[in-house]
């Protein structure tokens, strides 16, 4: 029979190798899928790599895609670290985007007549606040009533998307968009500048990197960070030691929701300029995968986000050249997640085979 034996000290080397092993395994498995689609595996993967990382343009596209992914990844990482399973990042992202446009949009004229240096932070704050408040509900339901936050946050995603659709059909509709459901555009002055000319890469990436660094520093060096880590690892012991567990969980919920809300605002301010119903192809959910790949480490999230973004962008480009559907990207991402979970587990446990456990007559 198979038995899992906990290692006395988790192997640090194994933890570092784990993501790479997971990815390698994934690519091996998905090569079968590529072959099934009738495409030459080697060439397909080469195109994938090229499309994601092979040129300056590819890199800029990848980093553009990575920007919201870093933020949703951070959102998931901080929440999961405190054992708050926030699956609602998708909805929080959209709500944040909507809030940003509500505050900073042109609204058929020139929008709110406030100085940019005032309006911009206000816009970002509104986005962060809406994401935060959206998650606060399910978080409180969990701590007060024991309602599982996985299902509530998931269901809320659907509700929020419908709400956004409602807004886009009505009060926030862009009258000049010829009937296409699209929100009013953001004021020019509020849009984020480009990092690289003639690409879509915008300064939102810098924001994301700074936030990743800040989150890492907070978790490692501050008392709040210690509280978050302690409460996530053992809430009872933390309560006994006198930590305000309920309040810590609220802080985490606000932080996680805010990060996802900011992801939406930054997408609007940097990439699109307005809100549409399909502006996020599942960034919220991908954030969870990214957080797990990074073992909930904020700095690791940056690397994992770039990796996942590269796969997504590369798959798009690959599917244009060979007959491999773009869904391969989601397959790669999900298999990486499962493989990463197994690899991380192997770093903590040893698998032991033992004689015995034959069926008794």
């Amino acid at each position, binding site marked *: *029979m198979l038995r899992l*034996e906990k*290692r*006395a*000290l*988790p192997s640090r080397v194994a933890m570092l190798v784990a993501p790479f092993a997971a990815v390698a395994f994934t690519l091996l498995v998905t090569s079968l899928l590529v072959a099934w689609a009738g495409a030459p595996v080697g060439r397909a993967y080469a195109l994938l790599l090229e499309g994601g990382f092979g040129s300056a343009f590819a890199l800029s596209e990848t980093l553009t895609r990575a920007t919201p992914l870093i933020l949703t990844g951070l959102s998931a990482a901080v929440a999961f670290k405190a054992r708050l399973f926030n699956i609602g990042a998708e909805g929080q992202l959209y709500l944040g985007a909507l809030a940003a446009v509500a505050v900073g949009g042109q609204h058929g004229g020139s929008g709110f007549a406030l100085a940019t240096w005032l309006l911009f932070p206000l816009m970002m704050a509104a986005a962060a606040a809406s994401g935060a408040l959206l998650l606060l509900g399910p978080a409180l339901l969990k701590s007060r009533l024991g309602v599982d936050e996985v299902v509530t946050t998931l269901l809320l995603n659907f509700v929020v998307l419908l709400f956004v659709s409602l807004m886009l059909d009505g009060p926030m509709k862009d009258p000049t968009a010829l009937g296409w459901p699209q929100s009013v555009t953001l004021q020019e002055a509020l849009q984020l500048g480009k990092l690289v000319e003639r690409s879509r890469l915008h300064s939102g990436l810098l924001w994301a990197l700074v936030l990743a660094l800040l989150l890492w520093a907070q978790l490692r*060096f*501050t*008392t*709040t960070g*210690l509280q978050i*880590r*302690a409460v996530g*690892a*053992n809430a*009872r*012991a*933390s*309560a*006994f*030691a*006198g930590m305000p567990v309920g309040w810590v969980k609220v802080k985490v919920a606000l932080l996680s929701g805010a990060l996802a809300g900011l992801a939406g605002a930054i997408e609007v301010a940097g990439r699109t300029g307005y809100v549409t119903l399909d502006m996020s192809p599942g960034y919220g959910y991908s954030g969870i995968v990214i957080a797990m790949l990074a073992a909930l480490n904020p700095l690791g999230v940056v690397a994992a986000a770039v990796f996942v973004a590269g796969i997504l962008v590369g798959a798009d480009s690959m599917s244009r050249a060979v007959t491999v559907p773009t869904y391969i990207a989601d397959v790669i991402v999900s298999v990486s997640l499962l493989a990463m979970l197994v690899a991380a587990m192997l770093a903590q446990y040893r698998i032991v085979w*033992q*004689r*015995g*456990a*034959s*069926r*008794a*007559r």
Partner: protein
Amino acid sequence: MTPAAAEASAVLSLRGITKRFGSLLANDSISLELGRGEVLALLGENGAGKSTLVSILFGHYVADEGEIEAFGEPLPPGNPKAALAAGIGMVHQHFTLADNLSVLDNVLLGTEPLWQPFSRRADARRRLVETGKRFGLGVAPDALIASLSVGERQRVEILKALFRGARILILDEPTAVLTPQESESLFATLQQLVVEGLSVIFISHKLDEVLRVSRRIAVLRAGRLVATLPAAEADKARLAELMVGRAVAPARRRAATPGEDTCVLQGASVTNGDGRKLLDAVNLELRAGEVVAIAGVSGNGQEALADILCGLRAPDAGRVRLGGRVLPASPQAWIAAGVARIPEDRHAVGVVGDLPLWENAVLERFATPAFATLGVVRRRAAQAHARNLIERYDVRGTGARGVETPTRALSGGNMQKLILGRALMGDPNAAAGPRLIVANQPTWGLDIGAVAYVHQQLLDACAAGAAVLLISEDLDEIFALADRIAVIHHGRLTEARPTAQWTLSAIGLAMTGGMRREASHAAA
């Protein structure tokens, strides 16, 4: 009986059983035999390997080396089903019963083929009641386990094995959770089992019981079988020495010179959500330089009492004062007021296992100015404090990583020393030690060496002026340490009388509420 005849009547035979968990050698080439109709005691201190051995016997673990024979037939390893089929039954230390299901369901489980499309419940119910009668273990088949008392649950555990026709019964520390009276009841049951022809393996670390109940005693120490002797030829001193391998000086208690009232509870009551009183008008005075022990079977209100004194909750009625002041129900307030707290469950409540040693060492105080400035943790100060603590309190098991070692890598004893150090060292800037020590089952699951260490630390702190509250289920420990003893039952606390005024049977009586009945009889 000649050796040959003894061999012939052996129902169980273990040969060369060896088991390793990583680098720990839990069982070292143990060979043992169980005779027909005999009660064999397996004696050893915590961590000696007793539970491991019987778990191997029952099939929960697979031995690395060795064989087992039951009733002359080899026993397939690692297979509880085979063990059950061979007539071996086990009453686990932590009951393996499902609270939400009935007694009948728990007993019936696994006795019918899985693919059978129906269940013969009426038959089973009848057989269960019959078996109960035969062995003197009354039971209500349709009662939910959640509604049963600890003693009743143990009866169900035993019946589970008997229902399946066990001829060999293993009892793992069965009296750990029983009152003295319930233990008596258990011993009577064991007699009945032997009369009916069963053979029993009785695991314990309590010398009195072992001498009383068993015919032969096998002593384990650090994984090896160090002696097998008839109970008639054994005495407590010899057994203790065999168990520990050396003479152990118990902690020395000096005469108490109690000082002023450090902590006073007046009419404290705690009511839970269902309206049941967890604590009922409790009065207690804890004085500096004195050890007061609370005896009682677990689940009679100790948790609520400990919660109040640890600052986790305030009484719903009545008052608690520390140093004459009423403190808010906040652990931080109580910690700051000089209360050292040792929780009941070191793994689940005492430490955050995933965090490194140094963070656990300052777990109660990392937000105070001693270890943090403007929300940033002062790592160097905290790590220095941790190193200090580890040295002073002899915490072992820090490997190459030192204070960064994840705390769950520590053994139980070392973890408890860490918790002890954290509680007793307290605020590094404070002049005096703690004023009140709340120790909840502080030596549960520890080996004799660690137990003696913890006891000495508590007594030293007491001599330095702290008031000590000891909550324990171990009467030996209570009698060894306490200056005064109070007994808790159904949330009510008896008067805390000096130790000399208590006898074992009086305490046992009080643990079951007998004293109140006695008092009301006297008044009538």
